[in-house]
């Protein structure tokens, strides 16, 4: 690694720490970094300590983890589909995970069952998108996006159906969660472990992923066992998406924006792109969630609304200009 990549990772690490600091010190009870120090030493007053340790810290950790999971899942799906517009939300993978999770909730299942149901939903979506948009040997942007949009709206109907069956008192929470909401997120221990293991595994495959974006035939010719690698990445992307959805509902566009921003910065090597995406995705969602809970305080917004406000215009811009700017395959 040369100096510039190291510098980038260092800058992103700094950004992550700063956004964590911002998130921990912002809120109705305003606190400064001195209070954080006091809390960490254990000599702050009890209310303040409770606000920071039991309210803000779990939520901030969940926001960072979710952002990292989504950015990593997005980057991996873009490799699999050879398309910079791929994103778990746009392609309906988040919708599949959300439907699975809602179904589990409806049957009163939680914990591992919930996670498993979300994973199955995500995997089913991936199978559908891959199976249906894989035309005569190549993925075309329009076919891919159409398939994704149709599958996403299909999941929308499933979700509507499940909501109609749900008891009324939980509806508001469910709707918020579906838009992407971190209000009820607890400390994401298992989510963080999955993010870390997923990142290590994906970065270890980084050089192969660099070649896989040149196409299956080229990858095969350069000595990559393409099918096993694809299957692994495919499972990994589904797992990451499902974990993000069980943590915070379906938050859109993080998986799309983050890898794209990094590519614009000239980062193309996945051994660097993937860890950088996790740091940047985590920081972005952390900042977005801080805004979501402070902009209209004491009212809280679902963070998914904020990411969509940034993501939708960017997506449209990409779709419109991307072909010439970034070599989008648009046949």
């Amino acid at each position, binding site marked *: *690694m040369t100096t510039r990549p190291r510098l980038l990772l260092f800058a992103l690490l700094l950004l992550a720490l700063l956004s964590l600091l911002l998130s921990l010190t912002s809120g109705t009870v305003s606190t400064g970094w001195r209070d954080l120090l006091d809390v960490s030493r254990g000599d702050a007053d009890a209310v303040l300590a409770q606000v920071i340790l039991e309210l803000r810290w779990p939520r901030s950790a969940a926001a960072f983890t979710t952002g990292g999971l989504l950015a990593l899942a997005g980057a991996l799906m873009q490799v699999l589909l050879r398309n910079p517009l791929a994103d778990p939300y746009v392609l309906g993978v988040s919708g599949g995970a959300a439907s699975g999770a809602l179904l589990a909730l409806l049957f009163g299942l939680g914990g591992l069952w919930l996670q498993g149901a979300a994973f199955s939903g995500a995997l089913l979506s991936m199978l559908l998108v891959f199976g249906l948009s894989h035309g005569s040997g190549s993925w075309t942007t329009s076919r891919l996006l159409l398939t994704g949009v149709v599958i996403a709206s299909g999941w929308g109907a499933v979700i509507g159906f499940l909501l109609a069956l749900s008891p009324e008192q939980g509806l508001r929470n469910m709707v918020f969660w579906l838009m992407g909401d971190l209000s009820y997120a607890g400390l994401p221990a298992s989510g963080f472990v999955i993010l870390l293991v997923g990142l290590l595994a994906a970065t270890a495959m980084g050089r192969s992923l660099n070649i896989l974006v040149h*196409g299956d035939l080229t990858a095969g*010719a*350069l000595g*990559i066992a393409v099918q096993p690698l694809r299957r692994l990445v495919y499972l990994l992307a589904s797992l990451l998406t499902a974990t993000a959805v069980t943590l915070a509902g379906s938050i859109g566009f993080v998986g799309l924006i983050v890898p794209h921003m990094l*590519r614009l910065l000239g980062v*193309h*090597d996945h*051994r660097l792109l993937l860890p950088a995406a996790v740091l940047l995705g985590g920081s972005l969602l952390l900042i977005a969630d801080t805004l979501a809970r402070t902009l209209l305080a004491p009212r809280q917004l679902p963070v998914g609304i904020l990411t969509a406000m940034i993501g939708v215009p960017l997506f449209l811009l990409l779709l419109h200009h991307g072909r010439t700017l*970034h070599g989008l395959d648009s046949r």
Partner: protein
Amino acid sequence: MTLLETQDLEVVIGSTTVCHGLDLAIRAGERWGILGCNGAGKTTLLLTLAGLRPPQSGRIALQQKALSALPRRQIAQLVGILFQEQTDVFPANVLDTVLTGRHPWLGPLQWESDADREKARSALQAVGLADIEQRLVTTLSGGERRRLGIATLLVQDPRLLLLDEPTNHLDVHHQIRTLQLLSGLAADDNRGLLLVMHDLNLAARYCNHFLLLFGDGETTQGSAAAVLTRANLERLYQHPLLPLQGPQGQVWIPQ
């Protein structure tokens, strides 16, 4: 040494039988040309020989080892292939793209070394792209992209090189330069070459063995002198051809 050997090979794509009962042996230092009309299955045969597509039946061996039993990485150390077209979806710079050729030689977690970068730069030099190593591949012209593909193949350093229309998109100067570079690899370095060519006269000038695919499963093979006859070529292209004596040997003019 025999680099690649097929026994009783049958390759079928769609309703076209590419070859039937093909016994082919490519030895080190030989330069083979594959000729055939459009849709005869030249590309399909090349993919099959590279192990990227299973044959209908028959055996393929690389240096006496069954192709189907070799791991992909080992195949990539023995055989390299240049595809007819290369599409780039994500931008990457020229140097990083050439370096992908080192993939079969690196361990799973290993990074490219300075020696690898050295190899990549000299390959870029050989195809005349040394001064654009930082350009994005998505900004290259068709001919530059073609030469980048050939440089990547040089960096991959295989014993047998399969090239699907290597002179595609190249101007006359670069056609000759590229074919000279490639035939040099066979002559000086004892590598095997297998070129799919559409330009009959360039093929005749740079290949010393030929495989003709007639499009119905029938094939003819052998030395240039034995195979490149007027009767064979007119049957192959279904077009009358006129042989003329040129300064570099015989050339064929379509009538």
